């Protein structure tokens, strides 16, 4: 009944703009492999793009970890974006639509949250920021 589990767990460095396209493509490829629908795929890679770009602009680049997750009958993709940048002083404020301290629209964090099933953010000023998102195959 349950499809064979694919064990994918890999890290990708995001240090420059071109890495962004590379990691978007990789996420899309893996999402396609587990049978995620086109709309959910697009939502996931858009969220990936937002978070990876944020990391590049505000966190000075970092690492994206890509994992396939299963929980009961659900199968999905979990992405963790980790940077060692300056961190976010006010996470609540950063989660508001249109709030930005840089040259972006301020849609990145709140927008990405709306595109995925689970979203969590942890940030320590001076230490860095970790954003974790999860998108189920069918949701």
């Amino acid at each position: 009944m349950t499809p064979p589990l694919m064990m994918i767990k890999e890290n990708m460095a995001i240090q420059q703009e071109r890495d962004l396209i590379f990691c978007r493509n990789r996420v899309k490829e893996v999402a396609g492999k587990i049978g995620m629908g086109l709309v959910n795929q697009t939502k996931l890679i858009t969220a990936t793009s937002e978070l990876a770009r944020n990391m590049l602009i505000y966190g000075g680049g970092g690492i994206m970890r890509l994992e396939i997750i299963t929980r009961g009958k659900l199968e999905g993709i979990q992405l963790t974006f980790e940077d060692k940048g300056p961190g976010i002083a006010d996470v609540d404020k950063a989660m508001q639509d249109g709030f930005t301290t840089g040259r972006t629209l301020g849609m990145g964090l709140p927008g990405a949250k709306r595109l995925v099933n689970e979203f969590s953010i942890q940030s320590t000023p001076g230490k860095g920021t970790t954003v974790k998102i999860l998108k189920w195959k069918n949701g």
Partner: protein
Amino acid sequence: MERIPILKMGKFLLVTIQVDLYDRLALNLEEDLIQMVFKTGAKGVLIDISALSIVDSFMGKIIGNIAGMSSIMDAETVVVGMQPAVAITLIELGLPLSGVHTALNVEKGMALLESRMITGQEDDTTADDD
């Protein structure tokens, strides 16, 4: 440096984006397009994004910028051929791209620009706006 080609078709400019853009390329496109609008005195800009599998907030911002800048130079911008998945994602992301005209394909986009040139400035309150 890589550039996206811009075609001049009569009074309009046509840009067909074939590859997923990285940010620098998108910024170049914005710059080039505005220069072209100025040089050619084009009355409309068609941006064909039917090959794009993703439009994120950065790309959305570029499209908005192009529309805004062309508009004050008296040229209208029409985005054509957006994929359904991309449209749904943009709405969920919170970017309805208001102020940008849209059409199903290049042909319909062209027709839209032509009809808007005929109706002129006074008829600027169609359903497409806001």
